[in-house]
């Protein structure tokens, strides 16, 4: 690589790394209730200066700390979680088209969370059942399609079948749900950040944190795992153990996210692809950059949703509507990067 290209790469890296922080502060000012950026900063600063004009700031404080900050944190965590899980699974399955949705993880997690909400109530953390059924779903896909190196089409078909099965189970749960629960379930399933609360965050954020850390630490290993199974084994990889570790961590972050915000598709697909276009295929860069890009893109998507209209489109619908055409465009344009 020439020196000029190298320094351009460095600038790009710095810009992308600083994006989530800038976007986070910017996003705090956006919403149905107008709070100017100046007031946002003053309100946040007031936490450290308790004596400064509390009366004026109190309502802003409520909005920022009870609604916007948890929502934005959740958006960033979900964006990072889905992107990193997508990138890791793509490496593991040696195919840039794989994602958590194809593998049945999303539908398993959604079923588990719904089951928990309907039968165990809102007080019980839905993350547990979400993780359990997500693992069950991906396990079923792997067992039926026959190991991780099987043909992509057979993996895809098995994924569709398992997803359909869990969707049917989910409908069954909806059938038994009371009309009141059903309404919130319906809204949640479309993928929505508007229900974010500190209570959800207090469970999901640490889980996502643990899963992301594992995948970040494994980032170089993912390069080796992306080779054929035979090659990876001959290079000294304990295949079963390391594959389970990656699938477990990717499933954990997806389930922890899905159980709070529902199914948000295409992020785990699009973001790693964009990152590979910008930074190359080395997972030492792809994994951390996917986390940062995923967090930023989710913030922007959420800003658009909150800023463009007074009613909120569920973000899951939004990411699919924007993501799919973009994906098709990329697919047509850059077949080379994939093969």
């Amino acid at each position, binding site marked *: *690589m020439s020196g000029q290209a190298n320094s351009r790469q460095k600038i790009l890296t710095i810009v992308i790394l600083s994006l989530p922080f800038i976007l986070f502060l910017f996003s705090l000012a956006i919403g149905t209730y107008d709070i100017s950026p100046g007031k946002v900063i003053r309100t946040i600063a007031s936490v450290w200066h308790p004596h400064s004009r509390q009366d004026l700031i109190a309502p802003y404080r409520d909005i920022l700390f009870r609604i916007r900050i948890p929502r934005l944190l959740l958006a960033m965590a979900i964006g990072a979680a889905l992107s990193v899980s997508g990138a890791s699974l793509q*490496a593991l399955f*040696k*195919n*840039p088209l794989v994602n958590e949705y194809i593998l049945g993880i999303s539908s398993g997690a959604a079923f588990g969370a719904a089951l928990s909400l309907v039968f165990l109530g809102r007080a019980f953390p839905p993350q547990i059942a979400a993780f359990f059924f997500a693992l069950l779903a991906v396990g079923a896909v792997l067992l039926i399609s026959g190991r991780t190196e099987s043909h992509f089409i057979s993996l895809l078909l098995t994924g569709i079948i398992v997803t359909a099965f869990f969707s049917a189970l989910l409908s069954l749960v909806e059938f038994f749900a009371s009309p009141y629960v059903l309404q919130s379930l319906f809204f949640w399933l479309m993928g929505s950040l508007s229900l974010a609360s500190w209570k959800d965050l207090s469970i999901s954020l640490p889980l996502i944190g643990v899963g992301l850390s594992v995948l970040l*630490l*494994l*980032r*170089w*290993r993912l*390069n*080796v795992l*992306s*080779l*054929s199974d*035979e*090659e*990876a*084994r*001959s*290079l*000294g*990889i*304990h*295949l079963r153990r*390391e594959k389970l*570790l990656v699938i477990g961590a990717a499933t954990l972050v997806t389930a922890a996210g899905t159980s709070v915000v529902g199914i948000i598709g295409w992020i785990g697909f699009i973001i790693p692809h964009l990152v*590979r276009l910008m930074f*190359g*295929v*080395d997972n*030492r860069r792809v994994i951390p950059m996917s986390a940062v890009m995923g967090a930023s893109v989710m913030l922007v998507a959420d800003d658009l949703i909150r800023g463009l209209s007074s009613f909120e489109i569920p973000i899951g619908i939004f990411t699919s509507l924007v993501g799919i055409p973009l994906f098709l465009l990329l697919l047509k344009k850059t077949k*080379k*990067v*994939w*093969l």
Partner: protein
Amino acid sequence: MSIRVKDLVFSHKNFSLEVSDFSFDSGKVTVIVGPNGAGKTTFLKCLGAVLSIPKNAVMIDGQDLAVLKARERARLISYVPQEQDSAFNYSVGDFVLMGRAGYLSPFALPSKQDFAAANEALDYVGLRRFAERSIGELSSGERRLVLIARALAQNSDILLMDEPTTFLDPKHETEVLNLVRKLAGERKKTILVALHSLEMAVVYSDVLVFMKQGKIVASGPPAEIFEARLLENVYEMKIRVIDWDGRKVVIR
């Protein structure tokens, strides 16, 4: 490093590999030849434990290959596959660096030493200048050399190579096989190569092994065993061997 094979049986579908007793000499180039489907690749994969093998079938310096940890095995034996077709287009440098996996914990990043080993391996095959390029940009001959470089970065005493010259033109074929000889000579590696070209096998091997239908049918120094009758028996076709200024030429 000595490799001793005893009562190795590996079956898959209607093919079965059976080697009752065989030893490979250390520091030598052993070339395995035989018709398609004779079991050359399967044999190499068993020796590299890429396929799962029974206990006590392959001993490396007295250690049972089947019970070695993946990491320990990778430091003893490296396996060079026929072709590389990764879904991701890594740079040559990153690709060769993967040869260091056996020296690193799953959670570790490659260290300075690992980078040095990868660079040294690239230097050895003469492709250091390609380190920043992506593998997809290389010719198939260069890609073979990159695969060999990755095996060298693994720094193992035993090198298994599965038809490293298939699809290469005569110049690149010679280049790769010269490199194989150099590795045995300079680095004292024990090298096992599966080859199709009989002429090349005779010239570049210390020991020739003939395989047919999953079994070893003959072995020894090429000067002693390379003759028309054996070849006709192994390949089931008319073959003549002509001595041309001390070189064996195969006419068919």
